[in-house]
């Protein structure tokens, strides 16, 4: 049975590859490995966190009204208890290969109260992004990728939703709303599922990793990038910390 499968898959591969250059070598990257190892990443900010800055929303009465009692604070630096740095993107930069299927469950980017929720998104290339406008005002969603195709869509109607897909892996790129210049989000697309954005405790869990040595990168909008090399054995659970200087 195995031989038959092998034969069929080889025949299909050969048939499909003929139209391409033979020198490309492997036509299909092998399926990427997974496992039961986990890396628990904690992202911290040392020193004093900058005081949160208030965002001026008066240009749009709807936005101003949404934040009448609860002023809108800049999302650039958000710090939780004990210096936990929120909204840092942590991902495996090196150490995994092969292809991983992109989930078809969309990641949601909401425009709510004239702010993007969430502020930082990690997603797989090929995974749908559902963009929602929960506000009764015009937002234009204007991502500016370099590798992927960008777009700029007006979303004037409350409750409007649309799905978009970034097909290629790409490092962090900016998303802006031209109508409300304070609105800002960041998206990165990956060829694998080993990434996450730090939560209120500054934590990211990278699960289902195979055994191996990985280059982990932590990215923060203001504090830049840090890299660490981490090795895990099969099924091992390891904790590491990234500390950015405030």
């Amino acid at each position, binding site marked *: 049975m195995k031989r038959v499968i092998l034969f069929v898959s080889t025949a299909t591969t050969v048939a499909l590859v003929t139209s391409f250059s033979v020198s490309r070598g492997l036509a299909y990257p092998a399926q990427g490995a997974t496992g039961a190892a986990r890396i628990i990443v904690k992202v911290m900010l040392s020193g004093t966190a900058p005081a949160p800055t208030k965002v001026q929303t008066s240009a749009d009465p709807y936005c101003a009204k949404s934040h009448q009692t609860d002023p809108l604070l800049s999302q650039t630096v958000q710090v939780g208890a004990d210096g936990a740095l929120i909204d840092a993107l942590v991902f495996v930069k090196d150490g995994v290969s092969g292809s991983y299927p992109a989930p078809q469950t969309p990641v949601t980017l909401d425009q709510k109260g004239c702010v993007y929720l969430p502020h930082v998104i990690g997603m797989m290339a090929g995974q749908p992004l559902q963009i929602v406008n929960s506000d009764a*005002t*015009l937002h*234009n969603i*204007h991502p500016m990728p370099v590798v992927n195709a960008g777009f*700029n869509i*007006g979303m004037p109607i409350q409750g*409007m939703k*649309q799905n978009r897909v970034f097909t290629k892996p790409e490092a962090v790129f900016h998303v802006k709303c031209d109508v*409300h210049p304070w609105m800002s989000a960041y998206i990165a697309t990956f060829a694998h599922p080993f990434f996450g954005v730090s939560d209120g405790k500054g934590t990211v869990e990278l699960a289902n990793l195979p055994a191996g040595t990985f280059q982990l990168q932590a990215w923060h909008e203001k504090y830049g990038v840090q890299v660490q090399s981490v090795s895990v054995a099969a099924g091992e659970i390891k904790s590491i910390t990234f500390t950015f200087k405030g």
Partner: protein
Amino acid sequence: MSHELIKHVAMAWMLGSAMCIAPAAADERAGDPRRGAEVYQRYCITCHGERGAGIGEFAAYTTPKPRDFRQGTFKWRSTASGSLPLVSDLERTIRDGVYWTAMPSFYPLREQARRDVIAYIQTFSARWKSDAPGLPLQLAPEPAHTPESVTKGRAVYEKQNCAQCHGDRGTGDGPAAKTLTDDWGNTILPFDLTKGHMKGGTSGADLYRVFMTGLNGTPMPSFVESIAPDEAWDLVHYIQSLSGRQSRSTQKVKP
């Protein structure tokens, strides 16, 4: 469709196949990039620069800046937001120029020369090799330009919140107008819709295309997701009423 027309379409299709090009792409052929390079060096290089980066000798004296061709980002398109334009879109821009800017009309050039230079411009961005422009927007036939249509168009203008940038009266002074920047970080102003002559062409169809597909590289988004085709023509008529202009096509409509 008349039999005569079907015959013509079939002929064009067969001719197209015989010449190894896509049948529907009969007017989508770019020309010869080598000849286009000569055209470019004679007419385009002073503003768009030797390498197509939009930094030619005269670029410093122009607002807005000449297009940087290296990203494959173009404003005047019939294709979806973020997509490459069709060759016919570029041909239209080169032929008619961009009013209110330093981009002149190259109507006196032969059409072949314009297509040649398009082929050359396509060598500046790798996107022309990796991406397809996608399908062009299909325009519904334009209904009559009536006062009712203008009134309905005003409602579309309000519902879509155009005033946020273009202002309540269309004069380009909406609350968001002062903070707009283009994708290169340059300050950019919303168009004053009362000026009359639009930048992207004089016809209603030109205007329709602008708000339905957006202007890549600028804050102007595509509203194709929120404006229905009949609403789009009402909006065209309303915007035209702001300057007392009508599109050429409706001027022919008998009351």
